[in-house]
């Protein structure tokens, strides 16, 4: 039995590590009252869904996440990540191949993009700026809320005891007023626009601006990635924003490659954490959270070992945390609704992944050679994507899936031998379980073949370049990374599960139902992606509680 930790963090995903580093630094750049922090990771390495792995000799794969944009610059700075080896290199190009004609491509260069869109439709080229302005406006608004604990409008009465956060009962009111002020500055028209936007389907949103089906399909890509919804489903417009709200060097919406693969992000954060005094233990799976008298007091490992600490933090997703790591009895003693919330939490797996080693750089149908240097979205119009979604809805992988492909080695010299390439293929939609039952090796083989065939169709000659394929279903992702159903965001990003409702009503401020219990993973505000914000925000709330003597 060990004791004496100020915080025990379950899970060494990038959010758990960020939370640990922030806590250990006491939330200050140079920590004075350093807390003793322990991170327990069940796998043999930290990083969760942000890892780099050599699955084929000489090739480093970003096995899960593959591009970086959401990681907040504030976190970069505070943890001094560049010194710990992190470098993110932006890329400029986004495209969609077309086996039947000219593909769609857009660039960093505004004029070049306009010229390229004009070849498809003058109308769309002309509407592009207006569309970009609307998106930027939404991003500017939401960006300010990312590193902020979401205020809960049910808790704003300053004259009564605040149930969730009794020690800061003006904070929700102040927070809401701050947001209201920002909102007020938008002006009437844009206030309406914004409210509509949050609940719209991406198809309805894009139809307001554009006519070219393939261009709309490409623009919709970001709104279905990782999401068990089709382009016609309400709420998908917001997911689009979730992918645009990141930045590289102040350039909103830009994405980049982490040099060395996404594992470099976790590695750098872990190094910062260790430097700040955090203790990290791998191969240390937590079995249960120990609760006594409504207080979280420690954890029991699979190995039987028990570790006690002043506070317990879960980086695991909400479903895993509340249904597996916590006893139902402990929850029911607080409020039986919580178990129900956890059961009903939407965390459907819908994405698979193929990691491919290539002998050379593929060329995509209907596009110039430069396309391979950015994101290549293989898909088509809304109907193509919706049809892919239909397969999924009825319990199969999409026979013609939507694929978000990048080849980081076009930019990164460290991930493959010279002249060879690593291609990351994100597959939408793939179910966690098939209608017929669990995945079998034959089914998985067929799914892999369908993906490779789809790529071949959009990049003739591609198959001849393939040296090795690592194929992942949501089931595999769950088993490897520990994300329930392999949902990449730790729970769907729809309005009912965002802000103060993330993960559950009444638990949107990183605090759990027990005293001294916290959540810090992507299942909390502002949600999934390699962003670090949930981890940093959770630490900020915890530090407040430490300071006020709430954590004893």
């Amino acid at each position: 039995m060990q004791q004496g930790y100020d915080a025990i963090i379950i899970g060494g995903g990038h959010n758990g590590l960020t939370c640990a580093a922030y806590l250990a630094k006491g939330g200050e750049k140079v920590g004075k009252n350093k807390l003793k922090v322990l991170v327990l990771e069940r796998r043999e390495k930290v990083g969760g869904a942000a890892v780099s792995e050599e699955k084929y000799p000489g090739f480093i794969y970003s096995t899960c996440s593959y591009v970086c944009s959401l990681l907040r610059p504030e976190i970069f700075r505070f943890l001094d990540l560049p010194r710990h080896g992190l470098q993110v290199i932006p890329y400029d190009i986004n495209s969609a191949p077309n086996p039947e004609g000219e593909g769609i491509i857009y660039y960093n260069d505004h004029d070049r993009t306009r010229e390229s869109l004009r070849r498809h439709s003058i109308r769309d080229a002309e509407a592009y700026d207006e569309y970009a302005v609307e998106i930027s406006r939404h991003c500017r608004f939401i960006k300010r809320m990312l590193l902020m604990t979401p205020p809960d409008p049910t808790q704003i009465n300053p004259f009564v005891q605040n149930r969730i956060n009794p020690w800061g009962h003006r904070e929700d009111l102040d927070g809401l007023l701050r947001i209201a002020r920002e909102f007020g500055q938008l002006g009437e028209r844009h206030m309406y626009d914004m409210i509509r936007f949050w609940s719209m389907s991406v198809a309805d949103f894009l139809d307001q601006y554009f006519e070219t089906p393939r261009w709309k399909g490409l623009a919709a890509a970001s709104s279905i990635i990782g999401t068990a919804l089709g382009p016609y489903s309400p709420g998908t417009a917001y997911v689009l924003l979730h992918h645009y709200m990141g930045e590289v060097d102040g350039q909103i919406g830009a994405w980049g490659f982490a040099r060395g693969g996404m594992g470099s992000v976790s590695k750098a954060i872990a190094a910062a954490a260790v430097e700040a005094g955090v203790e990290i233990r791998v191969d240390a799976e937590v079995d249960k959270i120990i609760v006594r008298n409504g207080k979280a007091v420690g954890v029991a490992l699979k190995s039987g070992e028990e570790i006690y600490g002043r506070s317990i933090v879960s980086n695991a997703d909400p479903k895993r945390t509340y249904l597996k790591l916590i006893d139902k009895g402990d929850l029911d003693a607080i409020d039986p609704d919580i178990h129900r919330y956890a059961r009903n939490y939407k965390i459907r797996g819908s994405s698979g992944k193929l990691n491919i080693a290539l002998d050379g750089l593929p060329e995509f149908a209907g596009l110039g050679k430069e396309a391979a240097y950015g994101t290549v979205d293989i898909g088509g119009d809304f109907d193509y994507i919706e049809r892919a979604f239909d397969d999924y809805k009825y319990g199969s992988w999409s026979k013609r899936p939507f694929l978000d492909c990048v080849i980081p080695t076009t930019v990164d010299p460290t991930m493959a031998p010279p002249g060879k390439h690593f291609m990351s293929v994100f597959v939408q939609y793939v179910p966690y379980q098939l209608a017929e039952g669990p995945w079998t090796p034959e089914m998985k083989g067929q799914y892999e073949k369908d993906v490779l065939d789809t790529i071949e169709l959009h990049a003739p000659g591609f198959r001849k370049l393939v040296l090795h394929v690592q194929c992942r279903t949501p089931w595999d992702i769950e088993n490897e990374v520990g994300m329930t159903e392999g949902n990449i965001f730790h729970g769907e990003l729809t309005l009912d599960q965002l802000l103060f409702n993330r993960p559950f009503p009444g638990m949107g401020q990183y605090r759990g139902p027990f005293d001294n219990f916290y959540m810090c993973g992507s299942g909390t505000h502002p949600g999934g992606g390699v962003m670090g914000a949930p981890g940093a925000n959770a630490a900020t709330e915890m530090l407040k509680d430490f300071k006020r003597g709430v954590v004893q």
Partner: protein
Amino acid sequence: MTAYVEHLTPFLRKTPFHPRIEALMHGSHWMRWTGHYSPAAFESVQSEYFTIRNGASVYDVSPLIKYRIRGRQAADYVNHLITRDLSKIKPMHAFYTAWCQDDGMLVEEGTIFRFGENDFLLNSAKDQLHWLEQVAYGFEVEIQEASNELCGLSLQGPQSRDVLRAFGINGIDHLPRFGILELELQGRWLRIDRAGFTGDLGYEIWVKPDDALWLWDRLFEVGRDHKIAPIGAQALETARIEAGFILIDVDYSGALHALRPSNRMSPYELGIGWTVNLNKEGYFVGKRALKREKEQGLSRYVLTGIEIEGRKPAPGSFLYADRKGRRELGLTTSACWSPTLKKNIAFARVPSAYAKPGTEMWIEIWYHKEHKIERSMVRCRAANRMFYDPPRKSA
């Protein structure tokens, strides 16, 4: 690793005049204009500027975005779109106007050409099709992007008429300001209008792309004795500030492209309230809001001219009510030293009360001096923005 730049195909468009312009481009001072190569300067900005005010300057205006507006209700549509009263504009005339969003904020301002009762061409700096089509709902009108159908040269300066006379343009002496002339010369179609962006005597000449080089060569041939010379955008910039013309993205953000709604401006605030005719028949986009703004005095500021002491140009400089700089009034948008007037001039966004010509204000100017940046606080006075307005412009 190779960078993708080697795979990119050149995409900047060349206007039909490009071969002639390129041949004269010694320092390669290219800039971009709506995705085209456009000259910023050839050799000496100063001599190019004086060509505008002393000779006949030639500037390639082909990159302007153009929309053809035609149809049974084209006139009704245009009158609904713009702030000016179309009923006062006769066919074969061009006119400068603003067009706004319904809350009275300026989308853009520019020149519209009226060829017939229901036949128009609108020139703009930014993409407008999405907006023009939205406004067209309910009108029997056809709007077509026609940017590449014509190419044109702007011929500006006191000698420009002499050049056209020598070119053999009959009737050029009688073409009034903003008049349009269409004719045939040596078997080629030409359109000439008397307008421009310099506030001087000047014309624009439009031809079919195939006739571009013919036009260029002929103009320079007949113009040689009339001090003709090509100019770039830098020389033009000084002339347009002297003339008081506002420029999108410099003096204001178009309402469709402004990220912050508060950055949008109304025609009144931009000092082009004269283009707004609240008494014209029927409704036009923005009328209600503009009427309210005018009647209730809701304008937040006005873009006025200022004349500044000293000679340091003052772009992006703050204005104050007092020398100590305690009370901030606003900011300059465009600024230059005027070589003709020998004045230090600028456009400044200030509260209306300060825009009355002669009102004294203070301006904080930062300027380079060798390797240092220095600051000075100097006096300035509000002035009519049309700093330079020679009689020949409309004579």
